[in-house]
């Protein structure tokens, strides 16, 4: 019963995490209206070649781009034809255009200087070493995780961490929590995420308050979001990796440009915006005060004992 309850909570969190993603709320692009008239919904009208007949057709799921999600996406300020071949300017477009190569992410992101700070060259090499690329050689692209039509960035060292976590985790859960999507790229049965993490104390809190990649990726990346996803067996299972003052999270999720200023100087204080991580969040000031006081106490006791034993010895000897 408790397990069903947890599963329900986790499903609700997953749904909320996807629906609650931060959006950019770009203004609608008029040139995209023609495209979105069909692709903005699950059903479109197909016309005969003479234009006299038409019929309602279901749009292929992967080709549906909900308007609102596109406007909120990181690419929502672009025209469709900025990335899609010019032939798409005339609508309805010929079906065989599907077979023409599209621009890839690297066509923009590798070339433009303004993207240098995102370390895309590093992301690319991390991706090549990741378990995903090894499982899907030659077919694993950025698109598999980051749908360019709906993707919102999880990257920011100053953003609200809770929002960063839900956005980042929804990218993973889109496949790993949905058997239909998962089976598009794998013949295996996806593991029950909640069940496979039951070994964690406070499972639900961990799944809601930490990014999947913080345990499941190699944290040597110069980027805020590491991309070298490790096989499940190599994921971090040592609690103290995070629950200690030198928490690995300080180099990934909790990396910050802010100073360490908080109530009684708590270490890894950026986490305190949304959570309290035992062991990682400890008051340095309180620790120092308690150690000094304890050493003083021991010194007083040893001094007292020294004089007491001396007194008793003298007293005994008369």
């Amino acid at each position, binding site marked *: 019963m408790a397990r069903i309850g947890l599963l329900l909570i986790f499903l609700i969190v997953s749904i909320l995490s996807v629906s609650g993603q931060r959006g950019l709320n770009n203004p609608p692009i008029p040139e995209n209206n023609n495209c979105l008239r069909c692709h903005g919904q699950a059903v479109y009208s197909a016309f005969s070649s003479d234009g006299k007949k038409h019929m309602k057709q279901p749009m292929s799921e992967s080709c549906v781009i909900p308007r609102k999600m596109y406007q909120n996406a990181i690419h929502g300020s672009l025209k469709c034809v900025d990335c899609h071949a010019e032939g798409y300017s005339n609508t309805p477009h010929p079906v065989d255009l599907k077979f023409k190569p599209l621009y890839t992410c690297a066509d923009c992101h590798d070339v433009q200087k303004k993207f240098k700070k995102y370390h895309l060259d590093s992301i690319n090499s991390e991706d090549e070493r990741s378990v995903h690329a090894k499982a899907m050689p030659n077919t694993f692209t950025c698109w598999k995780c980051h749908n360019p039509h709906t993707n919102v960035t999880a990257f920011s060292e100053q953003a609200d961490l809770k929002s960063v976590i839900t956005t980042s985790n929804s990218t993973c859960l889109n496949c790993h929590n949905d058997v239909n999507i998962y089976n598009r790229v794998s013949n295996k049965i996806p593991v029950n995420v909640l069940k496979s993490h039951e070994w964690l104390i406070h499972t639900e*809190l961990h799944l809601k308050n930490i990014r999947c990649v913080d345990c499941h990726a190699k944290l040597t990346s110069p980027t805020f979001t590491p991309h070298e996803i490790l096989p499940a067996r190599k994921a971090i299972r040592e609690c103290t990796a995070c629950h200690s003052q030198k928490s690995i999270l300080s180099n990934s999720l909790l990396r910050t440009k802010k100073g360490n200023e908080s109530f009684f100087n708590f270490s890894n204080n950026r986490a*305190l915006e949304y959570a309290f991580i035992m062991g990682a*969040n400890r*008051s340095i000031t309180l620790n120092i005060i308690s150690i000094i006081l*304890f050493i003083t106490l021991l010194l007083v006791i040893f001094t007292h004992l020294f004089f007491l034993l001396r007194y008793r010895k003298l007293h005994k000897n008369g």
Partner: protein
Amino acid sequence: MANLINSYPFWLRLWHSVNGILCLILVTTGLMMQYASPVKIVISLPTAILIHNSSGILLIISWIFFIVANGLSKNGSYYWPTLKIFKESFIQLRYYAYGMFKGESKPFKDDRNRKFNPLQQLAYWSTMYIIIPLLVMTGFIMYNIERLLVDKKSIIIYQVCDFIHICAAFMISVFLVIHLYLAFIEGISNLKKIIFKTKSYDGND
């Protein structure tokens, strides 16, 4: 005829031993949690948490038992301090710091109405009626983190609870060290009394 009074009944000696052991376990495992590090010290962090949480629940039961038993017996009256407690504590403190080295006799003798010297009375009362309740309350809130943490405000509540819990635990640690030291310098007979024997007030132990 010796006037024997059962000032350390069996239930009190049993509770004292259980409470002492629980406090030692809680302080040790609490330190392991507070100073958690990738270097494993005897037991792993999840084991330390499990032992700490279980001992914490037992401490709550032990505390409730102590309060109820004190309410039903005369024992509770020995703990409650009077207004003179600070003045008397200073006299006792002077004895420990100076008088005992000059061969002075103890300033406060045990009798029918006094089982503890003023410093003991103050320390035991504040430990059992202030520090332990603070520890178990803040510990209980943190133990139920999953059910209680719902918004940003609760993070601050948790942080404050952690702060109080650590301060109170530090005070218990200080109390334990001083308590054990003073028991040690009183001699082995004192230890035997609290573990094995009742105590008489007429000197015929």
